[in-house]
């Protein structure tokens, strides 16, 4: 019968209409600025740069190898290499990015940069409230804006971060072991005095390495 | 000038405008529009004579105008349908180009 379906539909909407005042469960809307959904662990968008320690300048993991810049499909990464070098976390002398810009207006969150980075320097973020009133500069993020500490990474992606940290610790340990062995060999060769130079940290271990290189 | 004469003059002017359009414009649609204007001028005459005539209570002029409007609707519909048919046939609605019936 013509009209039957319409009446059924009207009843359905009326039930929704009145029901939404009675049963709060019906309302699926999240009142956004006040209520927020917790994002799932795997949620990700827009890359950021990781640094170790507390100093973004010194601890920046990026060595400006420019692989990500070349791989980026929309070409939203712009890197300028520094002239000088500084030691990385294992104490190796590496270049660092003088300029590292990402145009997030162009970025498509494809995560390719993360996958190609050999230095665990770039990771995906979870930000989404990005609106800005600056139409041109606002979404061009510089190195300073991009750099975030490892603790932040551990907070937003705990599992991934743990895995990365573990690997890096292993690398560090290997590097230290190698350095220690080299140092021992060098010490043996040069002066057999017992090395009290069991300095703490990477900077201490870096010196012999540098020496080796030289 | 009496109101009746005023109405008649307006009507005459409207009629002439319509006629001028019908005579000079090349688009068949505008020719039809001109004819509609002439028809309307005639209607105005009827209304004027009914209003200022001797027996407005007989409603003759008014009723005639109503009928005339109805006829005009039919005329316009058929006329425009004709124009459409001609346009489909000749791919133009320019009356100066539609001369197949010439002697």
């Amino acid at each position, binding site marked *: 019968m013509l009209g039957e379906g319409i009446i059924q539909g009207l009843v359905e909407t009326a039930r929704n209409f009145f029901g939404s005042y009675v049963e709060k469960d019906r309302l699926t809307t999240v009142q956004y600025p006040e209520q927020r959904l917790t994002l799932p662990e795997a949620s990700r968008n827009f890359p950021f740069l990781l640094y170790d320690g507390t100093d973004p300048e010194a601890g920046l993991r990026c060595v400006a190898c420019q692989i990500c810049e070349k791989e980026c499909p929309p070409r939203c990464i712009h890197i300028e290499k520094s002239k000088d070098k500084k030691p990385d976390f294992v104490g190796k002398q590496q270049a660092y990015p003088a300029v590292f810009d990402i145009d997030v207006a162009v970025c498509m969150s494809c995560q390719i940069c993360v996958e190609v980075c050999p230095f665990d320097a770039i990771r995906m973020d979870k930000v989404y409230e990005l609106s800005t009133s600056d139409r041109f500069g606002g979404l061009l993020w510089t190195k300073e804006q991009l750099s975030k500490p490892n603790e932040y990474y551990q907070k937003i992606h705990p599992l991934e971060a743990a895995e990365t940290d573990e690997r890096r610790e292993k690398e560090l340990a290997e590097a230290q072991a190698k350095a220690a062995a080299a140092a021992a060999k060098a010490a043996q060769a040069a002066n057999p005095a017992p090395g009290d130079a069991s300095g703490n940290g990477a900077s201490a271990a870096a010196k012999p390495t540098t020496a080796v290189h030289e | 000038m009496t109101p009746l004469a005023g109405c008649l003059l307006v009507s005459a002017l*409207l009629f002439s405008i319509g006629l*001028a359009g019908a005579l000079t414009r090349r688009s068949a649609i505008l020719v039809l529009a001109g004819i509609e204007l002439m028809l309307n001028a005639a*209607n105005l005459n009827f209304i004027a004579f*009914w209003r200022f005539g001797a027996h407005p209570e007989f409603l003759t002029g008014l009723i005639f105008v109503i009928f005339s409007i109805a006829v005009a*609707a*039919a005329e*316009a519909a058929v006329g425009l*349908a004709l124009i459409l048919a001609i346009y489909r046939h000749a791919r133009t609605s320019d009356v100066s180009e539609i001369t197949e019936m010439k002697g």
Partner: protein
Amino acid sequence: MGMTFSFLILAIMTLAGGVAAMTMRRLVHCALALVVSFAGLAALYLNLGAEFAGLAQLLVYVGAIAILIVFAILLTRGGEGEPEGSFSPSPAGIAGAVAALAVFAVLTWAVETSSVARAGAAVAAPQTTMREIGFALMQRYVLPLEVIALMLTAALIGAVILALREKRNEPADGTAQKQGLRA
């Protein structure tokens, strides 16, 4: 007693609309100007006390015929492309204008010399109600009304038949169309 102010304004509106309709270059503009003229005329009828006729004029001319004209313009592709030159300086056009002028002159002359128009005293506006018009239509003029209704029906059918596209010689299953699409 002369003409009232409102009459003057409406007359000017009507005539201006008419002139614009007959002289503008784009057909759609002409149609819109025509609507102004029709609407002015409807208002004139109202002004003259012919309420029903005025509203019928509005309903039929503005509501239907104007739309029809507009449709016709668009269907004949008059709404786009280069507009035609409004005043062709051809001898035929000039002859037409002269003929129209002559008609106007004669009509004016007729009005001026007419004793009826001169003597037409201003009468009080007749009080016609819808009811009276209805009775007139249903009693005295019922036969013309029926005839008009019949004629309208005939015109409707005729217009539909005229405006229908002629059937082309296509196979009934529409394969030609499909092939055409594929091609």
